[in-house]
């Protein structure tokens, strides 16, 4: 994480959510294989970090591991650590974890349709969260729920409290979920594809809302997405994942102006919004290797136009680096 502050290595400072060399394994046909390999990330208050990659790269597993979700589905930590303000989340009791979840770190999911319970009113669902974390009376909690809904741009908050999820549009539901995430004043928000399920015109407004709240409350926001457009819009820093590894990370302007890893470059290049009219879109040949079939060297080597013999040996995450930018590639800047 040295690129965060010009060459200076920051570790264990007061307020920080830090993933260090985190590897997560899943069970595939009875065998444990790593699906996330030695991921290091650092989330700071007031900053937005984008974790970008295609489906199956391990970005959602990584994000869920921060709240130690996914463990009941067979995801296990195989090495590394996650520390909140210096304390390991893996050393915490279930009770401590319950305060962390929602209290310090909250999550916003992709599907606003399935994240709300259809048989309870919006009010009862928000008030439940508030009273779980804060020592408030019912009346105080209700007032706080109204304030939260107004914060996320719902004018007739009192009315919304009485409604059930099916009465709200997708954008409205996502606002409710954002309000719920803010209920206990967390320091960090993990947003996993928060706008993917929404219409484009609604997306823009949810993005604006998230950024507004993030600035006002000095939140550390981890944005998990496949969409470089969203990254361009929201993030201060970016980490690009491919086949379980972070292949490149840096400040958003570095990554957009000087993408160094061949995968990042290819992924940015095949977006139709930057394509040339009338020309075929650039493509990446081949397929992402699934967990368990990763090569021992660079995970991208098989599909990479720059691959050489030395790519068959493991490549360090920061083998190429400069200010605000590190890349896991031995051949940055070479021509294919």
């Amino acid at each position, binding site marked *: 994480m040295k690129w965060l502050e010009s060459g200076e290595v920051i570790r264990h400072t007061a307020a920080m959510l830090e993933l260090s060399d985190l590897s997560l394994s899943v069970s595939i046909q009875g065998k444990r294989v790593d699906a996330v390999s030695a991921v290091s990330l650092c989330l700071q208050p007031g900053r937005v970090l984008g974790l970008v990659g*295609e489906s199956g790269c391990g970005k959602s597993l990584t994000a869920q591991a921060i709240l130690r979700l996914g463990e009941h589905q067979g995801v296990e930590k195989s090495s590394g650590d996650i520390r909140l303000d210096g304390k390991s989340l893996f050393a915490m009791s279930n009770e401590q974890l319950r305060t962390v979840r929602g209290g310090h770190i909250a999550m916003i999911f992709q599907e606003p349709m399935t994240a709300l319970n259809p048989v309870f009113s919006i009010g009862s669902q928000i008030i439940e969260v508030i009273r779980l974390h804060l020592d408030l009376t019912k009346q105080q909690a209700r007032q706080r729920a109204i304030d939260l809904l107004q914060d996320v741009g719902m004018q007739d908050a009192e009315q919304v409290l009485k409604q059930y999820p099916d009465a709200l549009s997708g954008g409205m539901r996502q606002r409710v979920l954002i309000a719920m995430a803010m209920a206990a004043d967390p320091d960090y928000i993990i947003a996993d594809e928060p706008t993917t399920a929404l219409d484009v015109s609604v997306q823009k407004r949810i993005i604006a809302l998230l950024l507004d709240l993030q600035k006002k409350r000095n939140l550390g926001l981890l944005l998990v997405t496949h969409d470089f*457009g969203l990254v361009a819009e929201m*993030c201060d820093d970016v980490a690009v994942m491919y086949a379980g590894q972070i292949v490149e990370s840096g400040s958003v302007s570095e990554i957009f102006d000087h993408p160094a890893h061949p995968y990042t470059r290819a992924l940015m290049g095949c977006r139709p*919004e930057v394509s040339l009219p009338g020309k075929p879109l650039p493509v*990446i040949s081949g397929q992402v290797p699934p967990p368990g079939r990763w090569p021992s060297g660079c995970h991208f080597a098989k599909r990479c136009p720059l691959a050489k013999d030395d790519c068959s040996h493991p490549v360090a995450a920061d083998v190429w680096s400069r200010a605000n930018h590190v890349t896991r590639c031995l051949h940055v800047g070479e021509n294919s």
Partner: protein
Amino acid sequence: MSVLRVEQLNKTFAAGGMFKAIGKAKRAVIDTSFDLQAGETLAIVGESGSGKSTTARLAMQLLTPDSGQIYWAGENVTRLRGAELRKRRSHIQMVFQDPYASLNPRMKIWQSVAEGLRVHRPEMTNSQRRDKVAETLALCGLDDSGMDRYPHQFSGGQRQRIGIARALIVEPKVLVLDEPVSALDVSVQAQILNLLKEIQLNTNLAYLFISHDLSVVRHIADRVSVMFAGQVVEQGKVADIFGHCAHPYTRALLDARPIRHPDERNRDDVVMVIGEGMSDTGCAYQPRCAFKRDGCADFDGTLNAQGCACLYPLSVRS
């Protein structure tokens, strides 16, 4: 040559079941017309609930319109039913959004792809069918080694290729593509879009392309119809719509596209959608329109000569 033409289509869905008495009928498609030529791509864009998929299903005769006419290759098929309609269905075929849900998991790939042949080419023998399947899969960039495998053994991109092959096997003249790349990763999306372009160049197929993603539409389409609340609010060539659109809703959709570079943040000329919902009387877009003025409440929503349904268009097109 016009391969698909629809005129003044209307479709209303009645509230049903428990809520029949209190429910409100939904006008899903209102007075929608378009014409599609061989070798051309017409995109229908709009948000969920705008009526774009319903329009496509009406054009395919999967739904019956309340009023309006549908022509396939110049022939009025609006009143055709049963065997008469089935005989002609090979003219227009569909590719679905979700390649995971649209293939039968228990059928081998070749059987899924060959299904259309059973109906439209009953005279073919089994081995002729297999040859035809192999040929069509090759057209879609898949070799014949996967013919006896099952859908779960393929990736999302490969499954979408299979879905396209299944539509192509009866040699249609029109392909209806309902969000064909929105469930795919961006690198896979690029492959499928390239494939669709290539197929169109080689076969002169016409595409009716349903999408909410304007960047994809810009890349693939020749013409665009923008739908809002069941009505076409603007239509025109891609270059015109993307260059200087006239309807405030089109403008808002264009401005809502993801930006390409962080430097584009905080642009101050962005037209945002304000408010929610739609109006039942007058211009349906009123509650969200930043340019609403006198007269909008009485506007009947007909397209003007330039293809824009707005009393106060943003730009005047030549």
